[in-house]
């Protein structure tokens, strides 16, 4: 299905809850609030004509200090973070993107682990790098940085060359069953 048709389906189904839409070179996306996330993505997965059965990637963006282009996205930029979910349908060979506007790090975003099991490590990465907390996640711990790390390095207010030493090897990486949960 064409991506503009998917956008139309979502707008017809969710109406005002779609905050904004985006289209560029045939790629489209919608922006929603965290409260609607599970409902919208479950719809995308289960609707027979959409069938997004794979979550390809979860990525974070920090818009701190971002001026924007002064156009219609001004309202969105009052949200500091955005999380982008990339989906793919094996059956129907189409792709789509949903963005979630997160006001600041006090907002809790629902985990998609119950919808796609692959969300587990991707959400851990977003937590590690941006400090977004996912409620309902089975094992929300750091995945790339070491456990002694303080802060979240992909935030714009993290000093990029601030290095944090680790004094001991991480033995539990191989022995801790939780790590593979």
């Amino acid at each position: 299905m064409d991506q503009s048709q998917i956008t139309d389906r979502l707008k017809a189904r969710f109406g005002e809850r779609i905050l904004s839409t985006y289209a560029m070179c045939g790629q489209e996306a919608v922006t929603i609030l965290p409260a609607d996330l599970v409902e919208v993505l479950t719809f995308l997965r289960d609707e027979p004509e959409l069938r997004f059965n794979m979550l390809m990637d979860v990525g974070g963006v920090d818009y701190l200090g971002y001026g924007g282009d002064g156009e219609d996205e001004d309202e969105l930029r009052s949200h500091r973070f955005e999380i982008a979910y990339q989906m793919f349908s094996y059956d129907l060979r189409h792709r789509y993107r949903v963005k979630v506007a997160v006001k600041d790090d006090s907002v809790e975003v629902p985990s998609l682990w119950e919808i796609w099991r692959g969300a587990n490590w991707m959400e851990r990465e977003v937590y590690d790098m941006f400090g977004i907390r996912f409620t309902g996640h089975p094992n929300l711990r750091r995945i790339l940085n070491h456990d002694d790390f303080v802060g979240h390095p992909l935030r714009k207010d993290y000093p990029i060359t601030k290095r944090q030493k680790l004094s001991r090897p991480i033995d539990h990486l191989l022995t801790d069953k939780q790590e593979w949960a």
Partner: protein
Amino acid sequence: MGLESQLDNPFLTTTIDTVVNWGRKYSMWPLPFGTACCAVEFMGVVGPKYDISRFGAELVRFSPRQADLLLVMGTVTQKMAPILKQIYDQMPQPKWVVSMGACASSGGFYDNYSVVQGIDEIIPVDIYVAGCPPTPENVIGAVYKLQQKISQEKVAAWR
């Protein structure tokens, strides 16, 4: 049969340092600590075209307890740093370290939160190899430099 048949006198006078260092420098057993693309370049150095065994350092060991030359090839992150230190500590003396490539020597272009800015922050380094990645000739040059360095060492300096 051997050398003694060529000499009038079957004895040579030399020093312990000379003999031991001569043995050591042509029988280095490298441990490849490969964390990035430099390790792929090292495969070319070990392979038949460049063939590091011509310089007596071909017996690659994957246990630090059987190696005396640590080749650090690639980016070392803060998370990996204690592991590198532990591997270095496990190697028996005498031991030498070659830092191969820009990342291992200085952090390379990874001037960020996660990468160690040169492995000499963690372990002592004998030879630095420039390049990103270094050419095979450059790595062989490092082995050659290290052989020259070993031949100048005092045996008693090692524990």
